[in-house]
């Protein structure tokens, strides 16, 4: 009975009646590709189910930088913070989404943080002010970060009207976020250009 139920669930979620593809292209007004923007889709204005299979996620500390700069994880994810540097890092976030503090010794490789609420979690290192990264904890299965060409691709999107959200840490918009409605065809790919305006990143540095 249980096996039958899961087959039914799989059938319903994996084979919607009509599903098109969407290519989101984020660029600045001058045409430069914008990587590290998080694009989330809400078909029919609702989040789509998250994948049952939990991926592995990490933000590494290497050469006094967080890597990646922006990480997209589903609600419920565990993120590891391996330190590959020869110095200590003191990773923290005071985000209401997830407040935490990790004291990582040099070359310390095994520490996880669980994220169970959606939202943006800015990260900092209390020892190295120039280290900055962001985790976007998402509640929809359709979520991706734009690549070096400023592109994010989605396939098999159910429904025709899709709410598209674009977030970037330096986006000039309330909450650093834009929203738009995009009509996705039943079959084939639609391309959506998103022109954005970015703020210059903050100049960082500490006197001591």
């Amino acid at each position, binding site marked *: 009975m249980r096996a039958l139920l899961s087959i039914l669930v799989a059938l319903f979620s994996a084979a919607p009646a009509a599903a098109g593809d969407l290519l989101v292209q984020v660029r600045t007004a001058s045409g430069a590709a914008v990587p590290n923007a998080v694009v989330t889709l809400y078909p029919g204005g609702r989040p789509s189910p998250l994948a049952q299979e939990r991926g592995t996620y990490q933000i590494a500390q290497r050469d006094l930088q967080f890597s990646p700069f922006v990480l997209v994880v589903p609600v419920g994810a565990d993120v590891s913070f391996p330190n590959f540097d020869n110095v200590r890092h*003191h990773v923290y976030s*005071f985000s209401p989404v997830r407040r935490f503090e990790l004291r990582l010794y040099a070359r310390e490789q095994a520490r996880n943080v669980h994220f169970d609420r959606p939202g943006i979690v800015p990260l900092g290192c209390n020892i190295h002010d120039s280290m900055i990264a962001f985790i976007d904890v998402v509640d929809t299965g359709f979520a991706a970060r734009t690549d070096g060409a400023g592109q994010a691709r989605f396939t098999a999107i159910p429904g025709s009207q899709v709410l598209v959200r674009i977030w970037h840490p330096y986006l000039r918009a309330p909450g650093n976020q834009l929203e738009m409605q995009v009509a996705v065809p039943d079959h084939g790919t639609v391309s959506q250009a998103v022109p954005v305006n970015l*703020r210059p990143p903050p100049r960082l540095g500490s006197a001591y």
Partner: protein
Amino acid sequence: MAAAFGAALVAFAWSAPAFAAPPHLDLPANLSAVIDFRIVLTDGERSFTDGGFGKSRFANGGSGLDAHAVPAAAELVWHGPIAWNVSGTVAVAYQDEQDQPVDLIQAFVSWRPVPRGETRFSMRAGLYWPEVSLEHEGAAWQVSDMITPSAINSWIGEEVKVVGLEAMASRPLLGGRVSATLGLFGFNDTAGTLLAFRGWALHDQQTGAFSRQPIPPLGPDMAGAQPQWTTPTLEADHRIGFYGRLEYQMVAPVTLSAFYYDNRGDPAAFTNHLQWGWRTRFLNLGARVDLGAHTRLLAQALTGSTLMGPEDDEDDYWVETHFRSAFLRLTHEVGPLALSGRLDLFDTRQRGEYVHPEDAETGWSLTGAADWHITSQAQLILEWLHIESDRLARLRIGEAARQDQNVVQASMRLSL
């Protein structure tokens, strides 16, 4: 002489590739060092470092050009964690021309708790320069992109180092970030002595905690009251001074800052060595504008006064010096080169009973520098500094009141 300098410069540039691949020296973790090799070509009056009124570190007052190599200077810095929210910084320098060639430059601990919200707090305590200079950076307090700091920051380097405790808070405001600092300090009672008796100068020497700084020949009224030197890090009156600083980094790449300092010195207090409790107050305004990714404008303006000696019935002090200076500096990066130009204006006025208008001065200076970052460890800076100033007190040593001077320097800096 110019030919000798030229030859030395060619040799310097020739050796650049050797510096570019320095012998691999692994310093222990948290230790860093800067070694500075320098050649200098200069004309003009005798330097203040040599008993004259000259405004640069160099020049022997002889006629014509003087070319020489400066003994290598070095700075060793330890900057590292003490506990998770506490770090320490200790800088020791070797500077051959200083009264104490090896001396302590800075030593402080800072406490930075992990932010619990948008507001971030920090504190530091120890021997340090309060944050006035926009030109200096890092634990070694090196001038960025040039050799010689402005008149303002040369003076900060000489006389405005404190033994203090400061607290800072910063938070986002209107899309930018505002920060406020309040500091309490001692051991900076003689600040102002050099501005009163010598006037402004432009040089990159860093005053050590135990070093004395030379003063040019004093007028007859002051000669018995003050030796020919001053100790910048000194407590004479047991009064606590304070400073406050406000900074606003706007959304646009503009950072504005204001700094006010009052050492609350007792002008009538003095030590056995006739070091006085100068009452020094000043206001510094600063602006940094990033004109694109590779061009920045730095500007500072400082105005203040200092009082020394007992107050008489007519509210006059022995020394009452008013000082002000401003500079504008533009730096533009082209590949591994940073090109900088700076204009400095400075003056002092004397209203005291025993230090007269002959010790007042006016002057300006123009500096141009090219900083070549050969590798992350080696840089070669070439700088031309031109200073013009007018000070009647020069007549005391038989020099003309009006002087101009050129100093061309090449500095090879190795960072380990």
